[in-house]
């Protein structure tokens, strides 16, 4: 259905009302920048596209794959994409450095990151990570590791050796790392698939430790949102509809994703486990479909606090300006 949202400019609201009533309007182009190559991590977006949710809203979506050298914030700020899938912590620091971006929806609600150690190393408690080599991905991603250490009584500056982890798990397999970071939707399975047994691993969860930072979030340029509020609303709405669909029809969603992945680069089985993991992050226990994509104050605040505490951002984040809750609310 169509809802008239609060809109800054009469122009766009007029356009919005017509486009939602008449179907033969030309579709509006919209580019969404992913943070990585096509995979089930973005199943909601692919499902929305495939199932025509975007089209129903009068949008023609172009999904732009990411890669190791893509900086989502720069892409969005440059206009190379209208929406981007970034991380909330990353958004905060980019904003802190002057990039006029806002988050319009929060895709994942829980941290996907885990710390892994092999049982054979004997590191079964955070305290035993003292003086060990801890691998993580840097960028803005090391801060919850720091918070995790501090929470567990270790001085993140002195007591551990933080080391950059590549996008393979070879350092972990080769014992170049004592503790490695893994996403629950990919690297964790990469480790399992390589023959390491679940019971041979110690897994540490940031959420359990209360130091989780928010990840996958939909960002847009501030003035773009102001000018295209209606389009933003529709795009977010369709995306979340896509996520709900993907979570409820996981087999089909994986098939949809598999159409977009580069043939031969991954297996259906791998993507199936990935989507299963993602589903729990996007719609954790206790979440209703309506809540998918929403900002949970507590998580937002925790993310901002950790960012500030460990110097990721220099001044307290202006959370009001950092996220635009009205987009999702405008149902």
């Amino acid at each position, binding site marked *: 259905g169509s809802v008239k949202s609060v809109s800054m400019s009469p122009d766009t609201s007029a356009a919005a009302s017509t486009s939602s009533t008449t179907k033969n309007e030309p579709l509006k182009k919209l580019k969404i920048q992913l943070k990585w190559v096509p995979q089930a991590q973005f199943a909601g977006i692919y499902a929305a596209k495939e199932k025509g949710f975007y089209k129903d809203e009068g949008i023609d979506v172009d999904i732009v794959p990411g890669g190791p050298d*893509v900086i989502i914030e720069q892409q969005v700020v*440059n206009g190379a994409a209208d929406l981007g899938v970034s991380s909330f912590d990353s958004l905060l620091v980019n904003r802190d450095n002057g990039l006029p971006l806002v988050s319009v929806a929060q895709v994942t609600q829980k941290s996907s990151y885990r710390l892994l150690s092999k049982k054979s190393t004997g590191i079964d408690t955070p305290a035993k990570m003292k003086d060990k080599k801890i691998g993580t991905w840097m960028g803005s991603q090391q801060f919850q590791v720091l918070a995790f250490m501090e929470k567990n009584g270790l001085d993140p500056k002195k007591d551990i050796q933080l080391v950059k982890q590549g996008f*393979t798990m070879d350092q972990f397999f*080769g014992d170049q790392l004592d503790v490695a970071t893994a996403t629950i939707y990919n690297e964790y399975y990469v480790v399992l698939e*390589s023959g390491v047994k679940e019971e041979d691993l110690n897994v540490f969860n940031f959420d359990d430790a209360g130091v989780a930072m928010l990840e996958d979030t939909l960002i847009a340029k501030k003035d773009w949102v102001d000018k295209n509020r209606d389009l933003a609303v529709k795009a977010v709405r369709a995306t979340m509809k896509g996520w709900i669909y993907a979570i409820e029809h996981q087999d089909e969603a994986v098939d949809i994703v598999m159409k977009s992945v*580069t043939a031969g680069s991954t297996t259906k089985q791998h993507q199936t486990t990935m989507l299963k993991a993602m589903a729990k992050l996007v719609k954790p226990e206790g979440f209703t479909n309506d809540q998918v994509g929403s900002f949970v104050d507590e998580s937002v605040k925790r993310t901002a606090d950790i960012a500030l505490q460990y110097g990721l951002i220099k001044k307290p984040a202006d959370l009001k300006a950092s996220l635009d809750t009205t987009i999702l609310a405008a149902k």
Partner: protein
Amino acid sequence: MKWAKPAHQGAVVAVWIALLLLLWEFIAWLLHALMLVKLPDSKLPYLHKVIISLQDNLPVLIKQGLLTFGNAGIGFLIGSAIGISLAIIMSLSNTVELTLTPYMVASQMIPIIGLAPILYGILHDPDLSRIMMAGYVTFFPVAINMLRGLHSVQPEQIELMRSLAASTWHSYLKLKLPSAMPGLFAGLKISAPLAITASIIVELMGAPNGIGVLMISSLYYGAAQVYMFWSTVLVSIAIGLVSFYLLVLLERWLTPWQPEFRESGSGGT
């Protein structure tokens, strides 16, 4: 000391490839069976397993390889054009050369990840930006070698063109560019395989397809994909080989006057 004839040389390359592949299998065997190192597959997998995987995924690899090869071709053309133009501009005067050199060198120090935001910011066009980035990676070797070629013109030949009051255009067209051809080809031969790298790098900037996407994906998805990863490495080397060899042929065809291509030893002088 002449180069072997193209056909013969093709056979020689084939022998080299065979030898190197044997060496690969042997080293892999050492790692796997003899030294029992950790992660032998990540260090160097058995070649036959890679080849099996290569065979299994041949259609995909060929498709993605051709895509990357095509993009590399575009990047190579753009990069060569930039390199040649820069070298020509720099050869116009010593002052221009001294002025431009530091910028040319400095430009090479900007990694794609730093360049991309600026390029996108300037061009606002992802396709154009990608083409420019591919060109950016390949132009330097061409420029340096072309410049050397342009500087290698015999002073007396320049005097001849001066005595003919040849325009700058003519002295380039008829003297300096032909003289620079051997240098140019040296540069092109270096940058042709580099263009493959460039187009893969550009794929890392977010492309839906290509060998590069296959490469990072197979790294990211871990052990299950390790043979796929090495297949992509082999494919990129193979494309590089083909592009280099095409230039070897092109050089022979376009510059048959070069000493090493001449039919029989010497003339009368």
